[in-house]
């Protein structure tokens, strides 16, 4: 089985790029692969806890929580991008990491595939 690194930069609301990335991660984990998932820029909104589920907006936290339980999925939020948006360690869901941008670059180093999904 391989390791997939997915970098995301699009916002949780206003684009479906993040939805696509999470679906891709879910499919990869279901096939037995490991996934490192990087949240940068506006994508850091995905890390915020206490999101409400409305049908008009994407709700991805449930899937993320299920993926974290598999042990094959790591999700990391960019520290500077998060702090600039008022998202700190205490604001994010349990199991999510906060690191600086070098984490993403390091994750790519030994990934079998990297999918970098740019921002708006």
């Amino acid at each position: 089985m391989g390791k997939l690194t997915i970098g995301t930069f699009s916002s949780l609301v206003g684009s479906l790029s993040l939805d696509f990335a999470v679906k891709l991660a879910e499919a990869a984990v279901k096939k037995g692969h490991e996934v490192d998932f990087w949240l940068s820029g506006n994508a850091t909104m995905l890390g915020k806890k206490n999101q409400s589920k409305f049908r008009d907006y994407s709700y991805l936290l449930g899937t993320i929580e299920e993926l974290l339980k598999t042990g094959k999925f790591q999700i990391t939020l960019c520290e500077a991008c998060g702090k600039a948006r008022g998202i700190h360690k205490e604001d994010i869901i349990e199991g999510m990491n906060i690191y600086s941008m070098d984490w993403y670059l390091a994750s790519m180093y030994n990934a079998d595939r990297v999918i970098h999904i740019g921002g708006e």
Partner: protein
Amino acid sequence: MAVKKYAFIIEKLPYKSETSRLALTHAIASQTVEIHLEEGESVEPVIAFVGDGVLNCLKDQKALDMYGVTSQEMHIKNALLLDLKVLVCKEDLEKYGLTEDDIIMDAEEIGGEVTTEIVPFSEIMNVIETADQVLFF
């Protein structure tokens, strides 16, 4: 020592979104990546501006004065200071009627030694083809 080459290809305009800024900050973050890697492993970033992205390289940006945020110019100069390879697509510069006099070519005032390279698109394609990872911003 295993060095992996990452190509940061920047096509987005500056300031319209955060994208090109994130490209530069991620590229600069390569300087500390080794804390997460095994001994002997490292990353060599190459930054290439193409298409509208060449406008990130214009001189005399005033983002700090006008908006109180660091400019793309400051990030590019920091990249040069750190000896990162910075390429600008020659054909795309010409499309905008720009020359090396209009763009950031060095970071001499802060002690940088390497300079920006204006190169044909074919050379940037070569960087893309030989990179271990390509990150398109």
